[in-house]
């Protein structure tokens, strides 16, 4: 029986879609049959981030309305044999599907996959309600900024009220240099404020932009962000993997330097 995980944030632009793509690909690379579902009706993005935008024939609304079978809408990626994408509709609006229909679809496909990842749209309206319907677990994506943390808190409250109890935090785009000079909240600050379990931390990495430009993932590549996503995937798979303190390595070196310079 597959596990349904919704990737959500409240605020837009914090990295939900990039996270969905990279975790989906990471889990598939670990040999898990994984489907990623884009629920952002009208603003389809997940296919673009994954470089599969030219392959779309049918979409989520077609499947739900009975316009096609699930198999016809699913997009495979030759690079990742265990990965399936169910794209969103670019022309429909949020009211074309209901939470009830989402729940039904998920219960029908749950047995066929190990992991079902749902890419949630920004906001707390209909699209959010559709995306969390049928999810048993969530990944709340935030960046270390006031507005993103505020929205994340709101989202966590709504998830808890909806009966989703396993909600974990992913802090995206941490900049070590800024944290160190006191101009960006630390991982501890954000985790303490939001008071949920930390799933992982992704450093701000230009490789994410470069990869996304080309419709590729960072997971599986030799980059800081790629390695961070890989650790997150292993944690989702139940492995005990440490969350490295992003600010620690250089801090330690600094201390040694200070020791020798006598400052």
């Amino acid at each position, binding site marked *: 029986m597959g596990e349904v995980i919704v990737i959500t944030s409240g605020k837009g632009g914090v990295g939900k879609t990039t996270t969905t793509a990279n975790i989906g690909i990471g889990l598939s690379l670990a040999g898990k049959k994984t489907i990623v579902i884009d629920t952002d009706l009208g603003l389809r993005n997940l296919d673009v981030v994954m470089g599969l935008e030219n392959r779309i024939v049918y979409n989520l609304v077609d499947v739900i309305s009975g316009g096609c079978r699930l198999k016809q809408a699913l997009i495979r990626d030759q690079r990742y044999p265990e990965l399936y994408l169910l794209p969103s509709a670019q022309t429909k609006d949020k009211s074309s599907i209901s939470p009830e229909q989402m729940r039904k679809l998920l219960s029908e496909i749950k047995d066929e996959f190990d992991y079902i990842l749902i890419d949630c749209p920004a906001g707390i309206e209909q699209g959010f309600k559709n995306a969390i319907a049928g999810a048993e677990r969530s990944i709340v994506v935030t960046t270390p*900024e006031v507005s993103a*943390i505020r929205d994340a808190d709101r989202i966590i*409250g709504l998830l808890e009220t909806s009966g989703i109890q396993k909600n974990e935090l992913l802090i995206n785009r941490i900049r070590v240099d800024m944290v160190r000079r*006191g101009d960006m*909240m630390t991982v501890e600050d954000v985790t303490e*404020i939001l*008071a949920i379990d930390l799933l992982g931390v992704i450093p701000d990495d230009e490789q994410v932009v470069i990869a996304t430009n080309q419709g590729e993932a960072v997971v599986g590549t030799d980059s800081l962000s790629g390695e961070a996503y890989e650790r997150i995937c292993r944690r989702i798979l139940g492995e005990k993997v440490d969350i490295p303190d992003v600010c620690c390595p250089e801090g330690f070196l600094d201390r040694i330097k200070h020791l020798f310079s006598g400052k």
Partner: protein
Amino acid sequence: MRMPSVRIAKERVRNLLVTDRLQCTPGTADDLSRDIYRAVSKYIEIKPECFQVHITRSDIHIKYTGEKH
């Protein structure tokens, strides 16, 4: 020296979360804390500096440290 902007950010986010969680205007949380303090002090001997109200997403925690000799 410039004050690290993180301190301001943390204070702003904490205030925002309290007003969001209570769905109230910014001053209301302080009023609530003051009223809770008054109510508690009717029954327990407390000092303002030993009394704290903490508002989470689902609970309101009242913390007080008893008398110290």
